[in-house]
């Protein structure tokens, strides 16, 4: 039983290490959960969850797991049962996997029904689909608020109720957040130059003192090579018509990138729907103010981290055909997709950030071009979590398959 709770947490995307799990057991044995499910809820959360971004997942996991328990006065039987049991196996056995999968199917069906019913009742803004999709086979909040009795003290809510309120929904990192969070994510994009090359320009105080001391006080200066972030960034942003709906989001990223002063170099260009011969200097993509894409490919070495931001949604001919460019009065000899491939081949560290949430990539008008482009560039959605994944990808060379 306890094992199952462990796996429920995992399924909802909460990483729980062995040490933390053991600490929880210790705490339970020491009676720290008090005698209520609520105490148990707070104890588990304090010990197992290490970021507010996972509070919501935890609430969902908890609610889904305990949803069918009527809140009793004391610590529920179920928990005492667990305590008699062993630690969870850390390896997933084949049988377990099969079991889970079976469960999923049933769950999935039920969930679909529930969802449909729900969507008729109230408007959920689609967020729940986005929020839970993919992370979990139990990706639903299968609790039954109706079935929860609030026992005794009316002022304190039952744990399942608390969990069910999903207070921490807004902290989910897979939902879009502000400039600040983007900035935090961008800070991870750093790579210090080695101390092996470059001029020795920085006084190494410690070594100087050491040397001087061992010289019995005769001054000897020691110079060091400074360490600095060597990351250079090339940011290309789509400013085409269909991007209007994502303007706020893109602005946030734009601001965050601009404020990040830890890059050795930052170059920003704009394009309209797809990249062709020219890259523009400002978002209006005015035909008088551009740099040739060829020039960019020749001038910027492959060390530059290339971040492309765009919805990748366009008519198929804009991507696939010569002359497909959307601008009147312009013509492209090479189809856009060739340009994208060339970019990708040159910039080994590159990602594509798409403001369209991942779950919609298969359902939008742009599905065809999105999937084509995602074959060329690793594509992530433009959320904090997506940006973090993208940045991880930018830290190492990605195998280029174009």
């Amino acid at each position, binding site marked *: 039983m306890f094992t199952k709770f462990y796996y429920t947490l995992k399924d909802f995307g909460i990483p729980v290490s062995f040490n933390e799990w053991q600490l929880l057991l210790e705490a339970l044995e020491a009676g720290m959960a008090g005698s209520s499910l609520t105490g148990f809820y707070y104890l588990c959360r*304090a010990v197992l969850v290490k*970021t507010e971004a996972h509070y919501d997942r935890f609430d969902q996991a908890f609610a889904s797991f305990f949803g069918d328990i009527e809140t009793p006065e004391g610590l529920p039987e179920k928990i005492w049962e667990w305590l008699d049991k062993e630690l969870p196996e850390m390896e997933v056995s084949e049988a377990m996997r099969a079991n889970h999968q079976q469960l999923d199917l049933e769950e999935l069906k039920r969930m679909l029904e529930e969802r449909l019913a729900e969507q008729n009742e109230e408007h959920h803004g689609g967020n729940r689909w986005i929020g839970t999709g993919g992370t979990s086979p139990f990706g639903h909040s299968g609790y039954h608020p109706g079935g929860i009795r609030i026992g005794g003290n009316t002022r304190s809510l039952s744990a399942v109720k608390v969990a069910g309120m999903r207070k*921490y929904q807004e902290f989910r990192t897979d939902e879009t957040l502000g*400039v600040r969070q983007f900035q*935090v994510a961008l800070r991870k994009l750093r790579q210090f130059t080695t101390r092996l090359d470059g001029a020795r320009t920085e006084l190494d105080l410690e070594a100087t003192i050491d040397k001087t001391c061992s010289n019995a*006080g005769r001054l000897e200066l020691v110079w060091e090579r400074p360490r600095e972030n060597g990351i250079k960034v090339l940011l290309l942003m789509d400013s085409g018509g269909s991007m209007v709906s994502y303007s706020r989001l893109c602005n946030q990223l*734009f601001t965050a990138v601009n404020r990040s002063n830890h890059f050795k170099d930052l170059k920003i260009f704009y394009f309209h729907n797809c990249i062709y011969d020219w890259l523009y200097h400002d978002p209006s993509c005015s035909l008088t103010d551009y740099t040739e894409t060829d020039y960019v490919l020749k001038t910027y070495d492959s060390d530059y981290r290339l971040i492309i931001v765009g919805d990748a949604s366009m008519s198929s001919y804009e991507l696939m055909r010569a002359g497909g460019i959307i601008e009147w009065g312009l013509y492209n000899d090479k189809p856009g997709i060739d340009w994208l491939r060339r970019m990708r081949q040159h910039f080994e560290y590159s990602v594509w950030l798409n403001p369209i949430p991942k779950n919609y990539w298969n359902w939008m008008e742009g599905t065809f071009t999105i999937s084509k482009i995602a074959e060329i560039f690793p594509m992530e959605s433009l959320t904090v979590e997506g940006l973090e994944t993208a940045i991880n990808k930018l830290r190492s060379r990605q195998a280029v398959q174009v």
Partner: protein
Amino acid sequence: MARKAVDYKGSSDYIVSDELRNSVNIAIALQKPLLIKGEPGTGKTMLAQSIADSLGLKLIIWNIKSTTKAQEGLYVYDTVQRLYDSQFGESDVSDIKKYIKLGKLGEAFLTSDPVVLLIDEIDKADLEFPNDLLWELDQMSFYIPETRETITAANRPIVIITSNAEKELPDAFLRRCIFHYIAFPDPEGMEKIVAVHHPRLEKRLLEQAMETFYMLRSISNLQKRPSTSELIDWLQALVIGGINPNKIKQDLPYLGVLLKKNEDLDIILNQLHGKAQSRVQNAKGSFNRYRY
């Protein structure tokens, strides 16, 4: 491993939610550092003071800055002073001990009574900083090679660590902490906090100010939402300014006390009055960069 229950109950000048009190007691009992996150001004720093007051312990504060190194918390070997003394001083430079200055962590280990150690704003420091402290926080001891001494905590201090989420903290570090996110107080909780600071506030004024405050907070895309400390200052300003409570909502007096960013002021004025529209659009080019 668990320590005998010391029960933190909150203190008269600090309002603590059941949730937070619970986490504090769990951390104390399990002898783990308590990592506190939360919006600016939600009482992260003050919590440590409150714990110290409530338990009658001394508080040692280690303020972290972007240049702080983990080593400084343990000890610093003042080689420069020693060099200086060897050249010009008359004191005995062979006694290295004299030149070892304990840092805040070292100090917390050496005091004979248990203390509360606050490591404030750990995220300000370098990414590696938390990792560099893993061993010392786990073992509550460290070694000074220069003097061949090991400093071990006589009593494990209660360690409170705050973070403003400027940087992510390393997983290895997180695994060793009890974590608590201070949720922004709901109006009921906020009234209690306000009462600590302004015990005799006119009811109507408080009501109107609170409604306005939460309304402002609910406006999305603010760069910095006003928080507890700003509300407290604002109430002060309203009282001193002799503002008519009925005017608060429509006039938004002293708005600058609540909102520190010009962009935010613009957004609010724009949303509430439809004024300043043109200003918003022109002032910051980036606002409309993508609208065509």
